[in-house]
Structures are given as C-alpha cells and as structure tokens.
C-alpha cells in the first residue's frame, strides 16, 4: 500500500506531510504502508493507492483516485483521522 503526499513543487509542503504521515503510521502501527512525496504534475493514478494534498490543489488532484484533501498540512489531529480512514477504506485495519 502506498500513500503519496503531493504539492506543486514536490519540495516543501509535500515533504512535511510525508513526515507527518510517517509519524502517524508508526504511532498507529499500521502494516505495509510506504509513504513518499512528489510534485503533483508527475503523479498519475498508478503512482499510489492514496494521495494527500492541501486544499489548494484539490482540483489539480481530481481524477487520481483516492484523494485526501487536507485543510492544514501541519494539523496532526486532522491528518491522523485522514490516515486512519484511508487505512480503513483499504482494509488495513
């Protein structure tokens, strides 16, 4: 199972979200999830199972598949719930 955090450059916020997802994955002890980050323009529907973007990129992420839109990229509580639901949707918990 692959989670992909994306932002427009693939440098800044996507990396922050990736780190935070990794922390949560460890904290929740979720099995078999790899987390990566990239710029949104190089991501396609096959790039990951779940895509995470901040809300300004919601439209750009349309069509990728399972897209999670975050209101704040530094809100761990919001992200924790999002990761939990994504894991549940894909039968990991």
């Amino acid at each position, binding site marked *: 199972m692959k989670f992909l955090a994306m*932002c*427009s*450059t693939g*440098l*800044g*916020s996507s*990396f*922050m979200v990736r*780190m*935070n997802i990794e922390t949560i994955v460890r904290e929740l002890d979720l099995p078999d999830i790899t987390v990566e980050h990239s710029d949104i323009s190089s991501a396609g529907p096959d790039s990951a199972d779940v895509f995470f973007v*901040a809300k*300004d*990129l919601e439209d750009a992420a349309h069509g990728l598949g399972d897209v999670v839109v975050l*209101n*704040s*990229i*530094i*809100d*761990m*509580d919001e992200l924790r719930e999002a990761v939990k639901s994504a894991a549940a949707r894909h039968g990991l918990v």
Partner: protein
Amino acid sequence: MLSRLLPERNIHFTSSTLTWREAITQVAAPLLEAGDITPEYIRAMLDSVEAGGTYIDLGHGIALAHARPERGVVRTGIAMLRLAEPAALLDQPEHAVDLYFCFAAADADAHMRAMASLARILSDADTRQALRDAASAAEVVELITEFEESE
C-alpha cells in the same frame, strides 16, 4: 538545526497592518541584509504566490514563503515575522496569516533537513501555540531550543 538557521536577529514582530506582499518582503528582509538571499529570491516568492501560491498557507494562521534554491539563495536561512493583524494571501480571507516564515534553502540537502526540523516544530500542537503566543524574539529562540533539546 532550526535554532542555528533561525537566529534571534531573523525574528521580528510588527504592529503595522501589512499586505501579504509587504509581509513577505519584510519577513525576508533580515536574510537579504545578511546576504543569505538576493532580491531575486523575494521577487520569486511574491511571483509564486501571485501565480496562485496559497499553498504556502500551512493552516493555523501560519505561512511558509519559499521559492526554488536557484532563484537566489546564497546561504540557507530562515526568518520569522509575527503580525498583530493578519495579512491574507492574495487578499483571500480564508488565507488569513499572522505568522510568516521565510524559508531559503541553498540546496536540496539543506532543504530537507531544515524543512524536517521546521515541520516537527509546527506540527506539534503545544509548541505551535507557544510560538503563536510568544511576545519576543528571545522567547521564540528559547522555545525552539527547548523543543530541539527535548527531541
């Protein structure tokens, strides 16, 4: 890591009402004065927001202004500006920001390490609130140093 990149001289507070352009220009001013960035970097940050870059809004009233390293970063550095009144990105009320950071990374490696450090601090709810409540540059430095020592 962060305490070294964000020294007290790079942290400022203002009671003036600013536009988002003024806020980004002012937060970057200490880096420009120190020669860490060129004026081109400030233009690049402003251009990227102008082009729809509300992605620099991290949420919780915090924005991280940045551009690509090759657009005028000489030395890696970070600066912070606390506003008394929010300056909304692109004048959009949903992007009201009263805590601006300017992030200038000289290369990809410096970028990753500094960004990781900043992300840990801003994602920690208690430290984030303490940072928002801080009333002086010295207090901000103390908070960051304490956080780094506790890791």
